């Protein structure tokens, strides 16, 4: 043993302590530090927003949230996010399928490129999308400053969620079940809906919820390509920025609280889906 004797006293028969501890810190101290850090960085700022949003009372909150421009922004955000997650559910599952079950040259590269939207800064995404789908489009598609641009930008940033949630499930899916069903005469559509889909559903659900939460709050990738036109292409986060810049912090906070509430609801959904998936496995 290379340890100096004083560093590792070999006391025979010493009772090992139960549980694992950070050096010099019991669970309670470590918990205190972790919770303080989380509280200072995450909880306190969120509390500030909730408190600010009710500065002018409940009626002030309602006035801010129900102003026509805020409603238009929230509506666009939710509808665009819904469209995006439906496309993601279909395309994401399809991409995961191709990456797991198909084989073609360059598959490994395609597989690693999937994560690009997570790695690429959102402002760069916005700039690149504008270069391809803006007025100087090399492929002749100009959707800049339209609602279609909002959807495309959101599709870009949310691409990996469903793919990465479905892929591991497909990898562990037992192919014998499918062969058995096939030999018993089940058609391909039937096999997909009766065997494959139920097994992938928890992954699709998780991916969709995460993508929805991301789409609701997205800002950077929209900023250049959407044009931020009020009532047309202004999403909720851009509306909030406008309110901050015109020093209307109460209205900004009120709309933020609405966004927060939807996001937290979605996170709760993810937890439920994961628990349901776990129970399914047993």
């Amino acid at each position, binding site marked *: 043993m290379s340890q100096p004797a004083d560093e590792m006293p070999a006391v025979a028969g010493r009772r090992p302590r139960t549980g694992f501890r950070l050096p010099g810190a019991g669970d309670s101290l470590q918990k205190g530090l972790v919770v303080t850090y*989380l509280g200072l960085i995450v909880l306190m700022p969120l509390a500030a927003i909730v408190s600010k949003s009710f500065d002018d009372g409940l009626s002030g909150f309602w006035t801010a949230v129900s102003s026509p421009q805020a409603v238009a922004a929230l509506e666009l955000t939710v509808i665009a996010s819904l469209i995006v997650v439906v496309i993601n559910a279909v395309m994401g599952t399809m991409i995961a399928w191709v990456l797991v079950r198909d084989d073609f040259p360059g598959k490994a590269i395609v597989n690693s490129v999937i994560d690009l939207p997570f790695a690429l800064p959102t402002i760069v995404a916005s700039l690149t999308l504008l270069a391809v789908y803006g007025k100087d489009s090399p492929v002749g598609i100009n959707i800049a400053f339209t609602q279609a641009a909002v959807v495309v930008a959101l599709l870009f940033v949310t691409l990996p969620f469903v793919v990465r949630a479905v892929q591991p499930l497909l990898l562990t899916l037992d192919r014998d079940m499918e062969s058995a069903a096939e030999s018993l005469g089940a058609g391909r559509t039937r096999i997909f809906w009766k065997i494959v889909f139920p097994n992938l559903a928890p992954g699709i659900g998780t991916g969709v919820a995460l993508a929805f939460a991301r789409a609701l709050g997205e800002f950077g990738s929209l900023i250049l390509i959407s044009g931020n036109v009020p009532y047309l292409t202004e999403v909720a986060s851009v509306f909030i920025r406008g309110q901050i810049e015109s020093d209307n912090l109460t209205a900004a906070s009120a709309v933020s609280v609405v966004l927060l509430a939807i996001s937290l609801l979605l996170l709760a959904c993810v937890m439920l889906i994961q628990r349901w998936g776990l129970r399914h496995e047993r």
Partner: protein
Amino acid sequence: MSDSRPYTRWALRYAALGYLFMLLLLPIAVILVNTFEDGIGAVIEAITTPDALAALRLSLLTVIIAVPLNTVFGIACALLMVRGKIRGKSVINALLDVPFAVSPVVIGLALILVYGSGGWFGADLAAIGIQVIFSTPGIVMAVIFVSLPFVAREVIPVLEEIGDDQEKAAETLGASSWQTLRRITLPSIRWGVSYGVVLTTARALGEFGAVSIVSGRISGQTETLPLFVQKQFETFNSVGAYSAAVVLAVLALATLLAMNLLRRKEQSD
């Protein structure tokens, strides 16, 4: 089941690849072409202006502060969540996901409400000469917030998978908890930690929304590289915008490469 009908397989394959091409590869290719249209000299000139260099420096500074803090926090939090015998784990778990679920703009607004001039602590901090909002501390805080969960989220599953047999054995043999951490736990979670650090760094370098709200966007002072891209684009300096964007895109590709290498290392271990 895909073996019997090649048409379905091809249709699926090319639909998936076509979608990825239009959404991912084409944009990246176009921006590379646009950037180098005027030659590499123009690019180098654009990214070595004083404002661009100041933006790069500020971005690196935020990374140097935020990444180590969030790494230590992430490991401590993961150990607590997996090994600790505490109540309220589900609360910590939920709080840990908040930065992923909240709009960056909302994060920026929250920081203004706490540390801004009219905020909870803004006046007190100003009295002792500390300006957080429209200054470097605010930018660093925004970056810490958005990149908080990555290390913990990567390490938690690894800790769950390896179990605590070796740690228990080390303790039985009389190792102190510091020795157990340094010699048993940290080595076995190293790929998870590295993976988390790569993701944290990428997010810290690229964060735009939260930073743009708290920074005040003063060129040469409170502008990070992503904010510099926007400013150059809005002032019709497309060479500057594209060049800085390509720098960020190259860093993103390096991130992907690092993630792949780490995944391979982890599997070969």
